[in-house]
């Protein structure tokens, strides 16, 4: 099945991987909230969520990276989707306010980047 879309991500590994052939938008940020906020703005503009913004069991105050796929085309705003992304933002804020993201050593940062990339990739491959 053809999965076209735009990946919104703060994960350099996703941006750098040429095998991921869809359009990418890089958000420079060390935490996933910025990515989710950008995704929310795009949902308000009419883009559709293709992947769930909170995929993966790694919590927002542990995992710095997030890649979300939205549709390339815009249509009329879908309020169910607005609800989904707003819930995700609220959840993300809740976790980060409870305990902020730690400063990880490079090895761990790489591991998180890696898992985020595989989550998005494995879906695209299907």
């Amino acid at each position, binding site marked *: 099945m053809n999965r076209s879309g735009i990946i919104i991500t703060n994960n350099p590994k996703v941006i750098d991987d040429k095998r991921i052939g869809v359009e990418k938008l890089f958000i420079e940020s060390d935490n996933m909230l910025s990515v989710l906020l950008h995704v929310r703005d795009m949902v308000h503009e009419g883009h559709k969520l293709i992947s769930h913004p909170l995929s*993966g*069991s*790694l919590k927002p105050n542990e995992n710095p990276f997030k890649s979300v796929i939205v549709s390339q085309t815009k249509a009329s705003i879908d309020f169910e989707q607005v609800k989904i992304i707003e819930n995700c933002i609220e*959840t993300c804020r809740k976790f980060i306010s*409870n305990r902020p993201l*730690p400063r990880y050593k490079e*090895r761990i940062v790489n591991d998180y980047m890696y898992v985020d990339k*595989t989550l998005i990739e494995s879906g695209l491959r299907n």
Partner: protein
Amino acid sequence: MRLELGKIRIADVQFGERTEVKESTLFVNKEELISIVLEDECIQAAKIELAKPGESVRITPVKDVLQPRVKVNGGGTVFPGVIGNKVAQVGQGRTHVLDGMAVLTVGKIMGFQEGIVDMSGIGSEYTPFSKTLNVCVVLEPVEGIEPHAYETAAREAGLKISNYIGEAGRNIEPDSIEVFETKGFIEQAALYPELPRIGYVCMLQSQGLLHDTYVYGVDAKNIIPTIMKPTEFMDGAVISGNCVASCDKIPTYLHQNDPIIEDLFKKHGTELNFMGVIITNENVFLADKERCSDAVAKLAKMMDLDGVLISEEGYGNPDTDLMMNCKKVEQQGIKTVLITDEFPGRDGKSESLADAVKEADALVSCGQGNLVITMPPMDKIIGTLEDIETMIGGYDGSLKPDGSIEAEIQIIISATSAFGCNKLAARMY
């Protein structure tokens, strides 16, 4: 489908000359086990260690927990589709279980993954695996190995070892035999016409690396919802490739010993008619979620169920699937009870679930994973403490100089698993 589950009580585990069961003691030959593990080129070295309930032992990082079983007759092998490519359907005939012990695979795949099993102290109160006699397989991958390959190697090592040890139970007379049977739907419904028809919707983690589950060897990401007999689980048809968020992990052991299946069978024929299990997944794509939840509701209706129990694995993304399944099944006129764990933050004050629908008015809580506890130091570590602080539930300063660990109970294997295997619950204050 009728399965006789013969439980061989294991009261102790020791190293020995041969891998065998003698008078309720399991003996394992260390070298044999190590050579099986090292058949895989991805693994550079392996150690086998034993851990028993009550000992001052900490096992970490744990990848999976499995229970050795062996198919004595009835067709197929335990763990179909993953060991030796034997894919025949399972769930009938006779299977022997080495009851009271478990195999744990230990080894670091990702710096942040799970998890801890303490065999004594306060940490032991939260995990079911402090009560089993554990054969721990500590793995060391070759340098520079790609994480996917290592995860596969670790998963296969656990399955092979469990299988091998399980063989020791083949010719032993079990201490008890339980019979589990469900017939074809029409016959089953006719058997207890007065009793409510109850089904179990089992949601399988399926999001990607370290987030996968396999059904007859098929990656659950690729399935569409289907119906299974409860006894298929008892023969290892569903195995875990999951390795994040220790507290709500469903290790292979819990798929084999699914407490929901056990408790439904306990009342089967007396208070309810256990019709079967619907499995579905928790994919990342919203379109998949819609498709699968529609299919779950359709299957539940086709089975003419009066009620279902729905469990999930994981948090966040899966909560959306859980709510979708609940809503659509309820809309078919079928009652639901959801089983889940919660993450309301350290102070317990935030919303516990990432999603909610008003149809979810019957929920069983397996506890909240954000509670912070301090686990005392242990005399022996199986594995390594190296990454405790980046493990999920841990943080800077978690590992104290004296070896004690202050962390969220998220860090403990299966502390809040949404199969409801524990007595831990949460209430509103």
